[in-house]
């Protein structure tokens, strides 16, 4: 299996997977503790509208899709902040419209048919060095922002109302978080696909949450768990010639189920 490491595309895939794990460790932790998993799913799917638009207008993929997703994400943030009781419905609607819009855009784009599957599951094996550099820059930005606004993010995530009474600009921090989330998701969709993004955003933090004592530890441990899933999944996909993205998700999914069983066992043993 080690001979796989001599291939450039495997090396790139591993590096991309590790960097994606770091980004998802930070953002996923914030997504899970703020309970915005559904909103993240909404952004990821609505992003497909941006993909379609980029193809139709022949605009560059990354800025066009990021702009589109950012706009959709801001609407979702506005709705989830002002009309909480209707938020899930409206996010669901934007989710669906975004995808449908993207597919129709691609339909009416002459002479080209994008492969939907590559956006669902990504194509981590075709990642280029350039993609990796962009990811590294975003990862660095993420670490800096999380460091700068750690206290505010922690206070808002734990108890929004109390944070307001301490003068934390909760609304700005929330919109900032959603905006960064949109950028992260679009960047990672191109590389690992939107389903893997959601899996990496939610599963590692969910497992980490039970064993850590701070948000910071949760970010670090989630990143490590994500890295283990990514590497294991990639090696399995290489060994058995399976789709890489789906392999990583299956590894994560099995670990998720295991962690649930382990919880039950721990509860039973305590009695």
């Amino acid at each position, binding site marked *: 299996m080690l001979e796989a490491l001599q291939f450039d595309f495997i090396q790139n895939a591993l590096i991309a997977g590790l960097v994606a794990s770091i980004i998802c460790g930070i953002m996923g932790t914030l997504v899970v*503790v703020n309970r915005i998993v559904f909103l993240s799913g909404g952004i990821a799917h609505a992003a497909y509208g941006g993909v379609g638009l980029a193809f139709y207008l022949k605009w560059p993929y990354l800025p066009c899709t990021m702009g589109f997703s950012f706009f959709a994400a801001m609407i979702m943030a506005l709705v989830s902040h002002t009309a909480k009781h209707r938020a899930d419905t409206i996010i669901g609607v934007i989710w669906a419209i975004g995808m449908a819009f993207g597919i129709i855009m691609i339909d009416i784009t002459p002479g080209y048919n994008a492969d939907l599957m590559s956006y669902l599951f990504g194509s981590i094996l075709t990642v280029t060095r350039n993609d990796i550099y962009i990811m590294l820059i975003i990862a660095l930005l993420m670490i800096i922002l999380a460091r700068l606004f750690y206290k505010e993010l922690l206070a808002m995530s*734990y*108890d929004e*109302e*109390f944070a307001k*009474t301490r003068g934390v600009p909760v609304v700005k921090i929330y919109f900032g978080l959603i905006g960064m989330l949109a950028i992260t998701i679009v960047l990672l969709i191109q590389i690992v696909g939107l389903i893997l993004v959601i899996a990496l955003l939610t599963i590692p933090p969910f497992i980490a*949450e039970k064993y850590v004592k*701070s948000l910071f*530890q949760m970010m670090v441990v989630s990143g490590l768990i994500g890295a283990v899933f990514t590497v294991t999944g990639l090696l399995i996909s290489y060994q058995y010639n399976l789709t890489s993205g789906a392999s990583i998700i299956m590894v994560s999914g099995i670990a998720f189920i295991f962690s649930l069983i382990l919880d039950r066992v721990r509860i039973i043993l305590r009695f």
Partner: protein
Amino acid sequence: MPVIEINDCDFSFEKETVLQDVNLQIPHGDFVAVIGPNGGGKTTLLKLILGLLTPQKGSILVDGKPPQKALRAIGYVPQNVHVNRSFPVSALDVVLMGMINIDTGADRSKAMAALARMEMDEYADRKIGTLSGGQRQRVFIARALVSGPKLLLLDEPTASIDAKGQADFYRLLKELNNDITILLVSHDLLLISRYVKSVACVNKQLYYHNQAEITGAMLEHMYAGSTGETCPVELIAHGMPHRVLKHHEVK
């Protein structure tokens, strides 16, 4: 200067009037219980004092300043202590949240001192979700106290504590009341601690009953004996069978 000064305040959600013509002056060292029916505006009043809501009419001053500028003077203990129980945060870190945006230096030692005051210092490193409801509440009070407020606001603080715990809890508040003004919202119309010095009845309008109207001597006279020392909780009700307070005069 009163700690809380509310002048002719109106507040409505959309078209529904929640509070009307509210006037209130809370002097230093007061211990006010805010009572009233559900939907009567108690929580809205609290949020107005906290600066989370702004009245459509009238003015609110806390420690002589608008609430948004008096953040340091206010310590807030929210109602729900069961929120986010799986959240990875230690008791100490929760208390430190009370110091955000307040430059004091030596944050950690101050937070530890606040925990110690609540007799919770030995739990500083425990994950907040593993503490009992009553312990968590003490941590939340420490979080409210850590910024050295002049006014402590508590929303329905006894909901998560059992009867025995409530007696201890009120004794604790009495002690805090030595140097901090306390305003406590209670959803329970009948039970109010004997340590409470005044009562504000809120049902769209607000009626304030000061110490003279609910003197301890009067209450003890009416409820001497049985409830006595074990349970410092007494009855106050406007209606029958025991009328302790006069009916409100219709404005």
